[in-house]
């Protein structure tokens, strides 16, 4: 079994996906959600559920409908049809009450650049019912030493940390993050990942959109890949990966005739070799079939690999072919 699938299975079985393991009420419930920009269906029948203490990854190509879904989720747009429930209420009609329990990290931070870091957090505090301490809040994201610096003087990573400090002020029950690590260096990204894990461990639900597939793999308890306004595939990482077949790949020496195995595809490769790709639901049996034939036939398999499907394969399959299942 591949490392990613093992990690996914550990998460499914080990780290509680609370919606499955506990009867806690969902933080977010979306049913058959639809929204149009003129004649274009931006969101076209989306169903999602997010539970307390869960990181939910929302993936998709540009224009897939992720940001519109988040805007509908926060009550900033009124759905054409379908229902959105945040903490059990309609976010359009109960906006301030919903936002009292919600923090948001937007694609564009939108800070008032002339304010200092501490003034920015204090402004957040003054507009929030949640209570916290400015110094503690900044310390959590490693910005305590920059409290008197103007926001315009912060680096991209520091601005994002400040964004997270404001979003997590007072410990909200849900944090919505729209592509929070875009443009961040690896160190800042690692810091953010740690913060997201800390939120989850504290019982906060996190809805995260990202273009970085490794980020979704590393953080998300469950995820959905959107395409054309729909959720094309969703579930735990293991469930999502299972939508694409595993494959055994190898190369044969020039002149060796490939075996006649069901699901085997061949193509010319470098140095006159023949590339083999055997897709199968059962990776063990497929590997055994190919290596068994090679031993019997006295053929040598170069660059032999047996791999589970990766999230990138699922993503590209969705983006290229539409709905996977």
């Amino acid at each position, binding site marked *: 079994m591949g490392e990613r699938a093992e990690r996914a299975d550990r998460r499914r079985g080990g780290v509680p996906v609370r919606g499955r393991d506990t009867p806690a009420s969902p933080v977010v419930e979306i049913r058959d959600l639809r929204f149009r920009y003129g004649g274009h269906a931006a969101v076209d029948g989306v169903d999602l559920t997010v539970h307390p203490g869960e990181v939910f990854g929302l993936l998709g190509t540009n224009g897939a409908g992720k940001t519109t879904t988040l805007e509908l989720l926060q009550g900033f747009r009124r759905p054409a049809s379908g229902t959105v429930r945040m903490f059990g209420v309609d976010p359009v009609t109960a906006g301030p009450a919903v936002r009292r329990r919600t923090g948001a990290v937007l694609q564009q*931070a939108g800070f008032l650049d002339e*304010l200092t870091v501490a003034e920015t957090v204090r402004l*957040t505090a003054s507009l929030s019912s949640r209570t916290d301490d400015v110094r503690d809040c900044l310390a959590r994201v490693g910005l305590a030493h920059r409290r008197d610096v103007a926001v315009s003087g912060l680096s991209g990573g520091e601005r994002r940390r400040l964004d997270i400090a404001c979003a997590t002020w007072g410990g909200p029950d849900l944090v919505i993050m729209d592509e929070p690590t875009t443009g961040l260096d690896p160190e800042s990204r690692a810091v953010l990942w740690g913060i997201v894990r800390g939120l989850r461990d504290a019982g906060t639900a996190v809805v995260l959109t990202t273009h970085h597939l490794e980020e979704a793999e590393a953080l998300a308890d469950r995820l959905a890949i959107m395409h054309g306004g729909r959720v094309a595939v969703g579930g735990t990482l293991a469930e999502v990966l299972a939508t694409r077949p595993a494959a055994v790949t190898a190369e044969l020496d020039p002149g060796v005739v490939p075996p006649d195995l069901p699901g085997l595809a061949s193509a010319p490769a470098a140095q006159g070799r023949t590339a083999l790709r055997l897709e199968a639901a059962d990776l063990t049996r497929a590997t055994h079939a190919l290596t068994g034939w090679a031993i019997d036939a006295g053929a040598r398999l170069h660059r032999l690999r047996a791999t589970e499907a990766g999230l990138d394969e699922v993503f590209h399959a969705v983006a290229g072919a539409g709905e996977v299942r």
Partner: protein
Amino acid sequence: MRTVQSTGGRWRRLAPVEARLLLRRRTTLFGLLSGPLMMVFFALVAGPDTAEGWGRLAGLAGLVGMLISVYTTSATVFTLRRESGALSRLRTTELTGPGIVAGAGAPLLVAGVAQALLVCGVYLALGAPLPVNPALLVAALALCGVFCVAAGALTATVSRNVEGVQFTIAPLLLAAAVAANVLVAGGAPDALRGAMMLVPGVPVADLAFRAWAGSGPAPDVAGVPAVLVGLVLLLGWTAVAAFGAAARWRWTPRG
């Protein structure tokens, strides 16, 4: 999650921050100060020596000064906030949409009215007689401030960026300045002066003129006193600007 009970009216907590930002940003500070400076400059150049002359000056300078300081700054601030993503960010807080606009607009309104009243004090110091109807003067300037904030919000909805604001504000600025000049200059027939009163904001010029000098250039309309006509027109344009801004409002650059 630790919470305290919401006390409502959170926009009043945003307003002081917005006021601080007006002073910290050089472009908005310059915009705010240019209006009253122009009003004082007009007085020094014109040097009126009659109550009617001071009324004409108060009407013209009051309107144009408020347009320059409050209307242009309002359009700039709302456009800047939208394009920088600040409106989107504020929208994720517990503030309501109208609360965000009120929080950003209130400092402009207060600053504009305070400046205008300060300039009136300067006029008195320069030898102007006391206004005949101070209450009408304050009411006219306050209404003008509200109109300018609302018109600025409406103008922001058609401004693609901050640079574009200098073009989108021009039509109202030019039309109001020309119409107010025609109205207060004297010599124009009643019909033309009545028509000038229909230009957005221009009734302020008549109301301020009337408040300072005791009479104004706008004619009565079908037996309705000119002062009432002016107030109704000003309120009407303010409502049009406010509803127009609400209907066309965009929280994000992309809509």
